């Protein structure tokens, strides 16, 4: 398909009214030498271009999208409708900068206040803060909160964060970006954090440990109470990566499990769309002891009036205002609609669906771990790989059968990993059809492996040359004077 730049015919889409004031000019040395070479097309050309691009994509609304760890559940249209209300979407954020303007944004401040209260309650934390703009940004916020706590207590020697080897890459990256040394803790053969190795790594220099629970093997860390005890014994804080909160929502709460600080992925547990990679939202939750350090300013309620205050020992500003507010608003609508019973059913059904897929596939593919799983099931395609068909070939073959591929080659602890997360919003028929396709592919590994290696064939392009992309580094159509 042509690039939009290749379609320009010197037509215009949008025109403006004549300027109703005298023209003004800036000194030439402050102005650009020539106009930016932006695309210029008629409106219908722009509409067709992006409509055609959309048709070269798949989303949850098109297909089952069992991308493990990413929680590609249905994104309710109710949330989209609410996010489009002009009273929210047109609201200027600097109305929050000045108490004299707070009367002009009471509704939005109430959304922040109520959502933070609900998020805290759902996870058993003392308070939540919706500012961080994605899970990784929540992790960074959380690690900075941990740092502020230790600084306050005079723990200058605490320079290390422990991270299990099964953790998502953002965990060690967030700890490192916050200035910590990262020490990896291996998993045991059951797929859980190895307690002996954790004990060996735990010492007085440890500032915190970042855990995902259920972890990225889809398994609940059954020793969580012991892990919390070990951490707290050396005054290390326990961080909860909430990417998998959807598995346990309504069943148990990170705060009750002993976690001190966490992030939520609103774009996972609370159904907000993933937007081709973002925007998401990654609020943090904290226990009592981290409350004084939360990023400011925070919404408070006095006599029915909402205003802003910055906690005394606040780490400062993680965002200019309220982070990805319209995403948080969608999550608020989601929580209001589901409520108590609906939220409890999210966890139950996510877990039942994952175990159903595991039950249907365990003869055709080798489960990575023997146990009952939580919200996602992992297989290793090592046996298939020995026959020359790799996880990536299975993924591409699924695309030809009308499914988005599962997550592959993550977590790094499982060879040839296929990580399947069905989510609670898929029906039994969909799961059955998907499992049938997986089983058919397993059969073709023996009968016609070449067809799998040649997949996908149904897509606008086949497998692409990644080496060429990196070598030639053609990442933009530059302006003619730079190209």
């Amino acid at each position, binding site marked *: 398909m042509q690039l939009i730049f290749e379609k320009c015919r010197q037509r215009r*889409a*949008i025109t*403006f009214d004549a300027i109703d004031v005298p023209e003004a000019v800036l*000194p030439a040395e402050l102005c650009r030498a020539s106009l930016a070479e*932006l*695309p210029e*097309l008629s409106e219908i050309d*722009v509409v067709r*271009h992006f409509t055609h691009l959309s048709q*070269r*994509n*798949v*989303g949850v609304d098109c297909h089952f999208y069992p*991308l493990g760890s*990413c929680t590609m559940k249905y994104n309710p249209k109710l949330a989209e*409708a609410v996010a489009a209300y002009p009273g929210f*979407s047109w609201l*200027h954020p600097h109305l*929050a900068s000045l108490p*004299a*303007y707070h009367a002009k944004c009471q*509704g939005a401040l109430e959304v922040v206040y109520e959502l933070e209260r609900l998020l805290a309650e759902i996870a*058993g934390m003392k308070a939540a803060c919706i500012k961080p703009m994605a899970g*990784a940004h929540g*992790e960074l916020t959380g*690690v900075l909160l941990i740092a502020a706590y230790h600084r306050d207590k005079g723990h200058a020697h605490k320079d290390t964060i422990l991270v299990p080897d099964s953790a*998502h*890459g953002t965990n060690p*990256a967030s700890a*490192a*970006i916050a200035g910590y040394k990262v020490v990896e803790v291996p998993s045991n053969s059951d797929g859980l954090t190895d307690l002996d190795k954790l004990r060996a790594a735990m010492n007085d220099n440890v500032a915190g440990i970042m855990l995902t629970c259920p972890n990225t093997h889809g*398994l609940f860390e*059954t020793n*969580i109470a012991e892990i919390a005890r070990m951490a707290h014994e050396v005054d290390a804080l326990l961080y909860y990566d909430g990417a998998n909160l959807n598995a346990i929502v309504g069943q*148990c709460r990170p705060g*009750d499990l002993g976690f001190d600080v966490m992030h939520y992925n609103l*774009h996972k547990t609370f159904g907000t769309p993933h*937007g081709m*990679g*973002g925007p998401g939202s990654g609020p943090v939750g904290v226990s009592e002891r981290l409350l004084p350090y939360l990023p400011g300013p925070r919404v408070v309620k006095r006599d029915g009036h909402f205003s802003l205050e910055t906690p005394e020992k606040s780490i400062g500003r993680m*965002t200019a*205002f309220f982070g990805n507010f319209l995403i948080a*608003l969608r999550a608020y609508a989601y*929580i*209001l*609609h589901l409520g108590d019973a609906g*939220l409890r059913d*999210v966890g139950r059904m996510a877990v*039942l669906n994952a*175990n*159903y897929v595991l039950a249907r596939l365990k003869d055709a593919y080798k489960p990575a771990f023997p146990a009952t799983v939580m919200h996602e099931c992992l297989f290793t395609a090592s046996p298939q790989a020995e026959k020359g068909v790799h996880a990536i070939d299975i993924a591409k073959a699924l695309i030809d059968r009308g499914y988005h591929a599962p997550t592959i080659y993550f977590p790094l602890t499982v060879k040839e990993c296929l990580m399947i997360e069905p989510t609670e*919003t898929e*029906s039994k028929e969909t799961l059955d059809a998907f499992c049938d396709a997986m089983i058919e592919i397993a059969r073709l590994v023996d009968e016609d492996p070449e067809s799998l290696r040649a997949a*996908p064939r149904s*897509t606008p*392009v086949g497998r*692409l040359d990644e080496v060429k*992309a990196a070598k*030639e580094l053609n990442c*933009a159509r530059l302006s003619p004077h730079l190209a």
Partner: protein
Amino acid sequence: MSWIPATDADRAAMLAAVGVRSVEELFAAIPPGLRMETWDVPAGISEMAVREKLGRMSVRNDVCSTSFLGGGYYDHFIPAAVDYLTGRSEFYTAYTPYQPECSQGTLQAIYEYQSVICRLTDMEFTNASLYDGGTAVFEAAAMALRVTRRNKVVVDDSVNPLYRRMLETHAANLDIELVSGRDPADAACVIVQNPGFLGTVRDFTALGEQCHAAGALLIVSVYPVSLGMLKTPGAMGADIAVAEGQSLGLPLAFGGPYLGILATRKEHVRKMPGRIVGMTEDKEGRRGFVLTLQAREQHIRREKAMSNICSNQALCALRALVHLSLLGKHGLAEVAAACHAKAEYLKSKLGFARLLNDGPTFNEFAVQLPKNATEVASALTSQGYLAGLPLKSVGAGGDNDLLIAVTEKRTREEMDRFAAALEEVACS
């Protein structure tokens, strides 16, 4: 109240296939003492009731006043087709393009986005987006530390004070020295903003030369719409350009989602954070797009990655691309010209106030009123005006200082009436 399609019969059949009697058994791994019993979450309400409730909350927010509020975030016109096209669920319900063959729509759109950002800024490389303008400043500073292996970051007063506070917060636990000014000696970078927070337009070309002579990088934070008119960061010799992309087709939305823009020169691309899309081909020679240079990213390099970013603001980047495609080369220039001319017009009507800018301005300027700016702004809210941002509120000026922004949306008549109202309140 739920979006779960499973029927009771489905559940029973699935439980039987799994070999358990109840869903409860599947949660056996959670130690019994740690299970939750009650929580204070209200019962669900219908879609109709949620919309009613949130609709009522939404009208307690003022989006109807005539607004001169800017401060880094601007009320620009957004063509209808932006919402329409980016509301296609093939885009907004997709995730990161990890499977390129079924994500060519996303990948080509990001490639095109990278292209328009490079053309707008006169830079050579950009990424698929960062969270917002403030985090882009932090990422740019962190990038400069990696490139120069120095640890001093110099921030000019022209930089949005909110970005500055975000930079301090994000870097609080790092061994870096954060100083004010423009002196590049021993610095990893000097960060400036154009137009400055108070609206003043400058040319930082000479500063760029000083930075390079001192081995420091020049980071220029820009207001994208102003690049319809103003000298580009590339032309000034910037090593990294950053921007808050909100003005490119994103609604104000009480703070987000917005768009973090970061662009750089070829020599620094391997130190750049965030996803990058590259052009390539398949076996049959068909053009296609993939994520490239992924060895910089957290999913490969973990604690050695250039950044921790994973989810970004890709849909916002798509909005910026669609918006710029609809405005076009001349349309963006016209918007910039309108913003500038209208701001100059309003400025000319405010002879009763003292202009604080020490040079030309684009669409925003600062004035010192004869009276307390917060009280004046507060009084004008009851007349249907958001008069601007009292600078004291963000620690960027004195009691009487007011920052006033004008976009293409304001009409001459609105400005005439506003100037009269402001004079009346401020001078009485």
